């Protein structure tokens, strides 16, 4: 199994700051915005962005939630093993809010499709945007594109993008792994 570094810790950090600035450009003081990390890995990215917005860009209040899409997936019973659910925590009203979905890798778009259905259980948002750290080009199964992207990469089918976060793995990094 060979692997290639796509982004190292420094590059991840620069990209996170750029994404934070792009969010500020659109969402100003975030008073009507909710950042939603998608379980399982998107929550690390969402937490990190919220931290940068608060500490480095002095945004007073960031509304943050985490959404699990397990029960909304379209591949239930099509897999060998059952899907494991994660915690959903949305303690704010999403009605009329501007939602930003945050996920680490955008691949087929099916998780985002599920997330779009899932979020409707919590109300009717004003607008939903998508932020992805890694956008795998030419691999979409659905017409879904990110509004904010960290890095766009071309990945062939037998390769996998792995995002590591220092909270869970040892370091911040993005690898391209051959399966």
């Amino acid at each position, binding site marked *: 199994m060979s692997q290639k570094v796509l982004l190292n810790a420094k590059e991840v950090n620069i990209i996170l700051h750029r994404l934070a600035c792009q969010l500020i450009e659109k969402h100003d003081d975030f008073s009507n915005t909710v950042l939603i990390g998608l379980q399982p890995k998107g929550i690390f990215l969402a937490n990190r962005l919220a931290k940068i917005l608060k500490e480095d860009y002095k945004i007073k209040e960031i509304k943050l939630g985490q959404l*699990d899409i*397990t*029960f*909304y*997936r379209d591949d*239930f*019973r*099509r897999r060998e*093993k*059952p*899907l*494991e*659910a*994660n*915690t*959903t925590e949305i303690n704010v009203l999403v009605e009329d809010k501007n939602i930003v979905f945050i996920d680490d890798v955008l691949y087929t778009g099916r998780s985002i499709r599920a997330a779009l*259905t*899932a979020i*409707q*259980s*919590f*109300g009717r948002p004003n607008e939903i945007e998508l932020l992805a750290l890694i956008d795998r080009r030419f691999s979409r199964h659905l017409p879904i594109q990110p509004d904010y992207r960290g890095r766009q990469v071309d990945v062939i089918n037998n390769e996998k993008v792995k995002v590591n976060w220092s909270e869970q793995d040892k370091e911040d990094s993005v690898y391209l792994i051959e399966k």
Partner: protein
Amino acid sequence: MNELSVNHLLGIKYLNKKDIQLIFETADHFKEVINRPIKKVPSLRDITIANLFFENSTRTKLSFELAEKRLSADVINFSSAQSSVKKGETLVDTVNNILSMKVDMVVMRHPNPGAGVFLSKHINASIINAGDGAHEHPTQALLDSYSIREKLGEVKGKKVVIVGDILHSRVALSNIFALQLQGAEVMVCGPKTLIPKYIDKLGVKVETDLKKALNWCDVANMLRVQNERMDISYFPSTREYSQQFGVTKSLLDNIGKEIIIMHPGPINRGVEITSDVADSKQAIILDQVQNGVAVRMAVIYLLASKIKQ
């Protein structure tokens, strides 16, 4: 991820400790779902479930039906009172006729012990036992344990007394299996005539003095006297039964600690439990009902995920 070790839920007897843990963890997620503004997930859109009730039920039937609908399954209902069973059709024939309409899962309550096991040998669908005679009622035991876990943090090491008509109770047997699997101590308490012989062989304590039992336990699960299953008289009168085995406020006030009172319903107020106890803060009877939907959603979801396309 782990999956259940079984393809049917016929009884707690067939489950292991990991299965129960998996069901509870999944139920935690569904409990969050049923407290959302929109309490429904689309997971089981392509599953059809038949609820076959060959015996009366209100709570269990509603709870299963709600759980199925919250998972977006298609549901058909059947109760024997208005069916061809009265015309002499056999169980296997009835169920096979229903299954030929492309049903994936069967939830069945039946007056005969072992009906679920029998059916599982003859048909090709997942079966959930919703009570078979005086044998087992696995989802009730799961929701009882889930409610104890929710209230006390864990089931392990807790002392649980099951009070009342143990002889005719499927809830008692399933609860004994479920509680012991999770490492709780179990006692049964009731009139000698309503305690099965050799029940101590299951590793449970037997007590005929309610006051002693309540002093010993952390949780008391009160069972209903099942008059409809009694062909002979097991105690002199209802009044005498409630004096000896009914839980009252003054009895609870005198034991010097706060214990949890559970009841699988339906309650006979003034017989096994007085109204002030049933409506007190110590009683978690309505929490049990709410947890019932989440636990049944978890069981149905986990079994459905084993049905291959």
